[in-house]
């Protein structure tokens, strides 16, 4: 190792605290990025893989309207037209032993052409009827002829507590059936068959109450024979479509992209805070050695060598820190995965992820991000070091003087960056990543203005402090300004972290408030009744709505509609006579809009959909009906917080005109004034007894449930900003340590001049607390801007949601208090050190 580098290493090792904190900053920053990336990617990958397993070799899917595909179509395609490489699927969800599982109904005779896993079965025990199945030999026959015969993966069987040959109860659509585990789908652990139960299509149709219908037909069209696609397409009746299987999977995962992008942005915030920390550490290391560097320069070490020495130091730090961060991130990813996959389950699609799948790409990305951040933050100190003239041992004051000259310059560039951010916001339309970039630019720009703000604040505060706390306090406050090159960075780091907490808190609170208001307006009935996992029995509905105590009712049905532009949620609403739902219409006169909705086949679209497609009242939207595509007039846009890419609201009468699907999922009951909802509920329960188990919820319960899901979604956000704050805390600790160490001589002089250790410690503590205060104050405007950006730019661009900004002074007070306390705590150790150092020794040190 060359002497230069050995000197570097020696220096770093002599200052283990500095070294450790710098490494920790990089490490946590990288770890958060890696963990978030692993968690989101694992969820996404698990979903895609399970979809791939389920679609098998299918390249396309034949999809029908809300009720599925007529099974006669399948027979016709095979028997009349001789088409092959297709398999019918009847699919749905059922409950087995209290667990919600996916039921896949297949035709074994068509399976080989599409899927292979369903045939890879070990059935080594007894069938439910007691007939011994010694091998797989009776599998085909048993699956076809044994009532309720089912196959599942060993993991799923274990999860459900089932053994081969064991019988079990199945709950589907409020009805009970009997199933038996015929065999376990074998060996290949890469198959993601979690929570999947395979049965013969006849069983699936019976359990799911879909006789005559298929969920879809899986089709394989070899890439070499694209003509087959056209042949098949021409044979499909209106309302039935041939969709590309992979793009269907993609469009299902795409809905979650915005969610995941936001998480990634949050993780970058942690690195950004880490960046200040690294800068602090590296530049401190340079300052400490300014004498040594001066001597080295005098001895013939060139500017370039000095520059690369410091950069190499940064690189080494970055490498060690980032590597540790990657490892920590893998570990952390496991925990985040639970949170992320739960939110995805709540909001987007069912996914069972048991393991983090570690992708090399993610790790490399994390490593590079860490290295890059370190290098960037080492460049300025490296330039500084290279600028030292030979032999001149720069005094601290020279540095500060130099730094002071740049403060206005920094502020100026900060303002420029802020303006650039606003410009970017303006020109980037609804682009999410551009929006996030602008947010980061704004944060950086703001950070650059902080030193100037600190100078102004100390200028204003120092006399006041002197009056209040005497010389010590005045020194403490003015010391901040005097050491701005040090303290400024610490303040910025903490301010950015705290502002993030403000921004996110304000956003979440505003969001929650808006959702809550929206729920209040939307939930207009007193009681909501549905059957679990199936439409309500029509005969039962007529009886339920005539129950004593019920004044009026509305009904709803939710279906997925496959459209050329992607899947859409269709809400079918039958309004109670003479009533309009409370949904807020954003772009039309409500009475007129509802009239068009009820009587002129008009539809309403949700705000996210309107935003995404640039549609609104007066436009039309094309929907695939049972008789083909049809353009519907949009009579209004309603406020909505749906996450699935947007919904279309249609009246029952319009729906019945264009789709053959009389099913009703739930009814909303308005009770007679004075009627006790508990009484009505027990009456309803009595009617439904032995017919269809009802799920009944009051409007308050639904509200509560919805908000619970909402809160759960933001747990991960909480976790992320606490991590960012943790980095900031480390940053301020490191900065204060560095500052006190650097000022050891100055402090020793103060001791020598008669300051007691207690006074000295008090001064240092005061200083850090004031730094915290400054950070908190700086964080308030930044936090508010961030909240505004999150609400008006990010959420809007990501999800199309609009919300009312809700600002509470508590959020701001807590943020400021937090930053003072954090800084105060970070100052305890440095002040103890300062107080306990021997003045004589300290003075000799330089």
């Amino acid at each position, binding site marked *: 190792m060359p002497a230069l580098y050995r000197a570097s290493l020696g220096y770093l090792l002599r200052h283990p605290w500095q070294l450790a904190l710098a490494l920790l900053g990089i490490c946590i920053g990288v770890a958060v990025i890696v963990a978030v990336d692993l968690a989101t990617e694992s969820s996404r990958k698990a979903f895609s893989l399970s979809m791939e397993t389920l679609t098998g070799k299918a390249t396309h899917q034949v999809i029908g309207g809300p009720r599925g595909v007529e099974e*006669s179509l399948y*027979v016709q395609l095979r028997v009349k037209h*001789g088409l092959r490489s297709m398999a019918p699927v009847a699919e749905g969800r059922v409950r087995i032993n209290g667990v919600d599982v996916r039921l896949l109904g297949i035709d074994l005779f068509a399976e080989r052409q599409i899927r292979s896993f369903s045939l890879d079965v070990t059935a080594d025990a007894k069938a439910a009827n007691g007939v011994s199945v010694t091998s797989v*030999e009776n599998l085909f*026959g048993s699956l076809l*002829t044994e009532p309720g015969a089912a196959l599942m993966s060993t993991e799923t069987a274990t999860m459900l507590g089932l053994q081969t040959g064991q019988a079990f109860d199945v709950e589907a659509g409020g009805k009970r059936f009997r199933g038996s585990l015929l065999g376990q789908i074998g060996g290949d652990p890469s198959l993601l068959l979690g929570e999947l139960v395979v049965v013969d299509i006849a069983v699936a149709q019976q359990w799911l109450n879909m006789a005559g219908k298929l969920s879809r037909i899986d089709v394989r069209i070899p890439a070499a024979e694209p003509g087959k696609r056209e042949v098949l397409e021409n044979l499909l009746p209106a309302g039935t479509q041939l969709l590309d299987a992979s793009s269907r999977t993609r469009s299902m995962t795409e809905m979650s992209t915005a969610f995941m992008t936001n998480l990634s942005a949050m993780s970058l915030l942690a690195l950004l805070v880490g960046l200040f920390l690294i800068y602090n550490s590296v530049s401190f290391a340079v300052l400490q050695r300014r004498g040594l560097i001066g001597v080295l320069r005098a001895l013939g070490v060139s500017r370039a060598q000095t520059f690369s020495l410091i950069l190499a130091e940064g690189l080494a730090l970055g490498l060690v820190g980032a590597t540790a961060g990657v490892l920590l991130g893998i570990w952390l990813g496991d925990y985040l995965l639970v949170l992320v996959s739960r939110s995805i389950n709540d909001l987007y699609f069912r996914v069972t992820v048991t393991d983090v799948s570690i992708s090399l790409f993610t790790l490399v990305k994390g490593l590079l991000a860490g290295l890059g951040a370190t290098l960037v933050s080492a460049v300025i100190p490296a330039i500084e070091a290279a600028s030292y003239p030979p032999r001149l041992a720069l005094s601290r004051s020279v540095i500060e003087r130099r730094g002071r000259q740049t403060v206005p310059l920094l502020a100026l560039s900060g303002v420029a960056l802020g303006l650039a951010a606003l410009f970017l916001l303006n020109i980037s339309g609804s682009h999410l990543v551009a929006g996030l970039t602008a947010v980061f630019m704004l944060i950086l720009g703001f950070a650059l203005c902080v030193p100037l703000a600190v100078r102004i604040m100390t200028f204003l505060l120092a006399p006041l402090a002197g009056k209040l706390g005497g010389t010590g306090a005045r020194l403490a406050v003015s010391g901040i300004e005097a050491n701005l090159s040090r303290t400024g960075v610490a303040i910025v780091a903490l301010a950015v972290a705290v502002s993030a907490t403000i921004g996110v808190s304000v956003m979440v609170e505003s969001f929650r408030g808006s959702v809550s208001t929206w729920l209040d307006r939307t939930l207009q009935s007193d009681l909501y009744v549905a059957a679990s996992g199936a439409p309500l029995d029509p005969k039962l509905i007529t009886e339920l709505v005539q129950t004593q105590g019920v004044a009026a009712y509305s009904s709803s049905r939710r279906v997925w509609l496959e459209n050329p532009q992607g899947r859409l949620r269709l809400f079918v609403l039958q309004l109670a006579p003479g009533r309009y739902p409370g949904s807020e219409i954003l772009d039309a006169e409500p009475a007129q809009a509802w009239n068009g909705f009820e009587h002129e086949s008009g539809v309403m679209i949700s705000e996210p959909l309107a935003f995404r497609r640039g549609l609104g009242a007066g436009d039309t939207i094309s929907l695939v009906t049972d008789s083909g595509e049809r353009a519907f007039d949009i009579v209004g846009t309603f406020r909505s917080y749906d996450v699935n890419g947007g919904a279309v609201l249609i009246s029952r009468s319009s729906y019945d005109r264009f789709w053959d699907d009389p099913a009703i999922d739930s009814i909303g009951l308005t009770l007679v004034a004075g009627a006790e909802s508990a009484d009505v509920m027990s009456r309803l329960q009595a009617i439904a007894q032995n017919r269809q188990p009802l799920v009944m919820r009051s409007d308050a319960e639904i509200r509560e449930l919805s908000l619970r899901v909402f809160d759960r979604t933001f747990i991960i956000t909480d976790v992320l900003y606490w991590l960012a704050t943790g980095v900031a805390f480390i940053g301020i600790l490191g900065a204060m340590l560095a500052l006190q160490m650097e000022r050891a001589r100055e402090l020793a002089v103060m001791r020598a001049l008669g300051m007691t250790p207690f006074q000295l410690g008090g001064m240092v503590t005061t200083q850090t607390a004031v730094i915290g205060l400054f950070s908190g104050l700086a964080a308030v405007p930044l936090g508010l801007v961030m909240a505004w950006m999150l609400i008006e730019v990010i959420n809007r661009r990501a999800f199309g949601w609009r919300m009312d900004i809700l600002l509470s002074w508590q959020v701001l007070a807590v943020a400021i208090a937090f930053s003072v306390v954090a800084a105060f705590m970070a100052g305890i150790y440095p002040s103890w050190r300062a107080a306990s150092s021997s003045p004589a020794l300290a003075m000799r040190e330089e």
Partner: protein
Amino acid sequence: MIGHNFRLEPAPSAASEETGSGQRLSELLGSQRPEGYAIARQPRVFTFPRDHGPHPEFRNEWWYLTGNLEDERGHRFGYEFTIFRFSLTPFTGEVADPVGSSEWKTDQVYIAHFAVTDGDRKKFYVEQRYARGALGLAGAQSDPFRVWVENWSIAEATGQAAGGRSPENWRIDVGADSLALQLDLRAEKPIILNGVDGLSQKSDEVGNASYYYSIPRLSSSGRIRVGGEQFTVSGTSWLDREWSSSALADDQQGWDWFALQLSDGSDLMYYNLRKTDGSQDRHSAGTWIDKNGKARHLSRDEVQISETDEWVSPRGGTYPGRWEIKVPSLGLVLSVSPILPDQELVTTVRYWEGAVDVEGSRDGQSIRGRGYVELTGYATP
């Protein structure tokens, strides 16, 4: 007459998409649980066209068509098109399930084999289909007669081409893009009941028998597509119909089945049941049909068969490759040789079924012929 025993030997594991699951399917379908199924114990009264249709009270059944064809320039082809029916559970006569149940529910399974021998180019092609006997995916009916697996069918001819309605005026429509056959069949001989009035005893055990009839000559004309080329062909086909609920006895290994159409207008069917020890089972039997359609039962004692050559399957197993058949009571001496050695079908089961040429003499007069031979129980893993 294959199908009696569908648990012959495993199909190779690296099979095509259609045959991949075959081994298990064959194992399943060979499960020996005849309880509850109808049994062929005594002769029955055959009624047509009813008996052309399915007999779901029996466990297995098949419609077996083989034939020799050629185009106007003498390009030689052989074909086999067979549809098997299997009942997975004993027939209960139960009516359809209550409302809400699925049309897919069934215990009837249909499998079809289609093989073509291109005699001139020395190529052999096989395709297979299977489907459940529900929803019209596969099935059989007697009036009008039709048996089908997806878009492969044998059905009573209708329309002008049929030349008026007649029960044994059928049309085969089978195949896919590269291998296909459309053939109009017209019975030239009456329905022949094999065994004793159609009851064909296969071992000593009572009930180990089938109902078995044939139409030994069906004039055939149509089109065949093979190797990307289409040919207009004509020739003669043979129909075998058999249903039962039994399988081979434990000491039986397989059989050699001959269906030969001779130049003097007569036809010879003979099946040689082989025991596991290599000897000939005494239940081996045959039928000789004269040119007027008059049948005569042939017992094992009347027929002498010797193998004069062998063929080793590249997939395992040694098959006989040529035969000499003597029926002294008929003055018949025949040499039977395949037009192509490898006519082995790799489907759910592996067996040999191929077009053959016949040369020989009857009462000293030179005689020729064509036909089909089926060999089971030879394949080894």
